[in-house]
């Protein structure tokens, strides 16, 4: 069978895939195909009808569908092809895609470069092992969101939400406005995993109680949920006997985390980072398989779509550079893998307080530029300092007023600093956080000023 080789195939038509395809197109790549399994573009944004998108990128507050349509409209004016209702079922490391659709059946597509933008999926009930019956009325929060906002079903009258991730918080407000009673939001950690603005606007505004350091220890009822028992947990997240409370409800929403969707990536032998659940990427968003790039929630879970857009534009640009380079040199001499043992890379090491960084490594074969490093901390920090170190010396430090695991942070390691590292032969850079002593509060910081998002807006 003759297979046409496209320049670029993007898997997934959510905000990540849309931004990546557009930026590659703007860089001069014309033969681009987006493959999307849903019957429309936009990904998760179609069900996120609340506002709060785009403050950063468009400097205005949009709803999910509005944010998506800006990109979908731009795409219309391009030559990017879109295959809807088409699911990629397999990807190989030589960039062959096996896809199925009801219109074309089974097809094989091939490309010079592939961008993974499959997003993530929700963690279901199984992995968290909540005891009790198996009744109807238990939904993941995003599933309930789709039912209510797109398909027009009401999910229940009295709900308890397990987990305080953003989707759970958004749904607490949504169900309340739809006339349901939301009795509690129960969070096992001593802090919420959601954005502060969502705690205020979704829980406080409607007097919905948030139980921190609590979890559901029993689900009651069959065939429909009739109630839940919640208990306080200790520092090791074990329920404390004697703290049980019964809450009568007919619906339980689970907002217990998102998992990057990487079955396809694994099938293509792409190295996965166990901390993020997504592919290991370099500063160009290239994975361990050369020519396959990744961006958006498939790499790591983002809380702001604006960052997804920035990251994905970068991935699109990198893929375009590769494609245009192949076209001009007509050889494949740009093959190398960042995870090879003797690859020329600087590893980014997670020091104190850091749970992961993206990118995970800096590829020295790629043209160096200022590198944005995204990371999350593993606990809440007050006024603190982020240190960037190599060997025994500190290269850079950044001040932050507050860091929480629920909010992704970003620092920029500039080109000069990177060149310094290279000239000294360092192959590791460590990022770490320390909390400032309380007494330092009033001390004048001689380091670079932290620009707050509010000022940028």
């Amino acid at each position, binding site marked *: 069978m003759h297979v046409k080789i496209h320049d670029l195939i993007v898997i997934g038509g959510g905000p990540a895939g849309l931004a990546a395809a557009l930026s590659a197109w703007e860089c001069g790549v014309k033969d681009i195909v987006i493959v999307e399994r849903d*019957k*429309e573009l936009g990904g998760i944004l179609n069900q996120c*009808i*609340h*506002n709060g998108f785009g*403050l950063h990128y468009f400097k205005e*507050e949009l*709803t999910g*569908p*509005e944010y998506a*349509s800006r990109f979908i409209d731009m795409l219309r004016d391009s030559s990017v092809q879109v295959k809807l209702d088409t699911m990629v079922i397999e990807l190989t490391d030589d960039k062959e895609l096996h896809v199925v659709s009801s219109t074309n059946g089974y097809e094989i597509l091939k490309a010079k470069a592939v961008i993974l933008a499959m997003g993530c999926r929700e963690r279901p009930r199984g992995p968290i092992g909540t005891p009790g019956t198996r009744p109807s009325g238990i939904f993941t929060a995003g599933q309930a969101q789709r039912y*209510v*906002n*797109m*398909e*027009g079903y009401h999910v229940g009258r009295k709900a308890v939400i397990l987990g305080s991730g953003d989707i759970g918080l958004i749904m607490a407000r949504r169900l309340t*406005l*739809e006339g349901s009673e939301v009795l509690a939001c129960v969070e096992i950690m001593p802090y919420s995993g959601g*954005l*502060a*603005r969502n*705690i*205020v*606007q979704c829980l406080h*505004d409607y007097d919905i109680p948030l139980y921190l350091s609590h979890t559901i220890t029993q689900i009651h009822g069959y065939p429909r949920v009739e109630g839940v028992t919640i208990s306080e947990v200790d520092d090791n997240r074990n329920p404390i006997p004697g703290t049980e409370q019964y809450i009568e409800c007919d619906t339980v929403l689970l907002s217990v985390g998102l998992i990057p969707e990487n079955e396809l990536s694994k099938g293509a032998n792409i190295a996965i980072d166990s901390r993020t659940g997504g592919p290991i990427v370099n500063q160009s968003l290239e994975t361990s398989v050369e020519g396959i790039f990744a961006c958006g929630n498939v790499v790591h879970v983002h*809380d*702001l779509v604006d960052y997804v857009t920035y990251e994905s534009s970068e991935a699109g640009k990198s893929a375009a550079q590769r494609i245009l380079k192949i076209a001009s040199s007509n050889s494949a001499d740009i093959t190398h893998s960042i995870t090879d043992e003797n690859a020329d890379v600087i590893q980014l090491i997670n020091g104190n307080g850091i749970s992961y960084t993206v990118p995970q490594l800096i590829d020295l074969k790629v043209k160096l530029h200022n590198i944005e490093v995204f990371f999350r901390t593993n606990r809440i920090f007050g006024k603190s300092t982020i240190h960037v170190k190599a060997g025994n010396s500190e290269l850079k430090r950044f001040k932050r*007023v*507050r860091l929480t695991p629920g*909010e992704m942070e970003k620092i920029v390691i500039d080109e000069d600093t990177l060149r310094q590292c290279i000239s000294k032969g360092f192959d590791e850079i460590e990022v770490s956080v320390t909390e400032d002593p309380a007494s330092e509060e009033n001390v004048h910081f001689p380091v670079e000023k932290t620009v*707050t*998002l*509010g*000022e940028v*807006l």
Partner: protein
Amino acid sequence: MTELICTVCPRGCHLKVYPEENYRVEGHQCARGEKYGQEEVKNPCRIITSTVCIEGAEHPRCPVKTNAPVPKQMIFNVVKTLNNVCLRSPVKAGDIVVENACGTGVDFITTRSM
């Protein structure tokens, strides 16, 4: 004094607002936070988003939002105005669905072309 979390940007600064001192704000890191703190104490307002019934479109619900913030205590009354609305496809994003909801001067508009 009222304690608040600023929700203008994701940083979520912890603010203290002193109404008795002409709404002086503490804890903000930028001017937008100061304005938010004052308004949140004087007259808290929110953009409201919801959905309405639509016929003849790909999905049975069409997303809508208020085109300006609505006073917080009016939220439930304002969303009630959507209960009996049923649109017919095609609609364009920005079309008015309910005009001057509950006399607030604020309209509900669609947020998606369907």
